[in-house]
């Protein structure tokens, strides 16, 4: 089981992640954020195979696909 983690302050709503997902696990949220971007959201993450294509193609480093045993953490923020 995988989790679709979106950083809404990085995402610009280009939709490429939705386009590349081979399983249609994510979809557009239909909501416009404060900067005018239409952000994606999960549709059905039970379909997700963890291929991470959405994470790789994201132009804004806004997506992380976490597996349940994921140890990935928030990056070190510079002082």
């Amino acid at each position, binding site marked *: 089981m995988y*989790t679709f*983690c979106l*950083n809404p*302050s*990085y995402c*610009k*709503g*280009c*939709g*490429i992640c*939705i*386009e*590349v997902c081979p399983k249609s696990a994510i979809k557009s949220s239909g909501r416009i954020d404060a900067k005018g*971007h239409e952000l994606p959201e999960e549709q059905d993450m039970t379909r997700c195979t963890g291929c991470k*294509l959405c*994470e*790789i*193609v*994201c*132009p*804004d*480093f*806004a*997506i*992380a*696909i*976490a597996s349940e045993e*994921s140890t*990935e*953490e*928030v*990056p*070190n*923020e*510079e*002082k």
Partner: protein
Amino acid sequence: MSTSAHPMLKYLKTQAPTGPRLPLILCPGCGAGQVLNYTLHAVDRILEEDNWPKEHFVFISGVGCSSRLTSHYLQFDSGWTLHGRSLAIATGALLANPRLKIIVFTGDGDAAAIGGNHFIHACRRNLNMTIICINNGLYGMTGGQVAPTTELGETTPTTPHGNVEDPFDLCRLAETAGAPYVARWTTAHPRQAIKTITKGIRKNGTAFIEILSQCPVHKKTAPVELFRRLREITVSKKDTDAIAAGKIPLGEFCNLDKSDWIARYQQIIENARSPEAD
């Protein structure tokens, strides 16, 4: 909502003393961010597998949208330099310290127009650098003007009546000029791009990798639409019929073994410093 973050953020300066540096300055759906993502995946793999010190990696760029990738985002040594001159600057860095692993981000205007002369000579000289050219077929930063890679007939702000010039094939140019490693992919080919960039960085000598990219803003088209189009207009280099019909070939065009500038010059240094020399 999970707190997991993109794995490549470990290579980016998300935060600086004067405030946050991300999100990237690029427009929504810009392919340059994707190329950065692919490149960092390649570097990540190399750091994991090759035992190269991270501090030896240096990213250099010129001016233009693609060059914004080194404008203070990277947790690496980097230089955001002069329009067209990044390859000459990379040359200087390698003359000073040949152990550096130089990755140059450039665009089609930066590499082929204002930097065209430096580009062909960098390919000819064969210093150990990886040139990643993000080709969106126009000048994005200044408003979508015609570039040396713009298709014949296209209208742009500076070709309002249509472009009368034929575009450069940058890979053929690089190969003819002598670069030992030349390849092309698009932003819509992420896994192939990562594999090729990894190979390019590992290549001893000048590696030229062209990534065809999308500019949704100046093409006035949705990113996803352009992303699909990149798949449609390109084919494998092996599909000669489709290429003859006008499709753009993708893949590795050459991968030659030849000694690089530093290795050849090292012989001169050793001769000059040998006890037999004056």
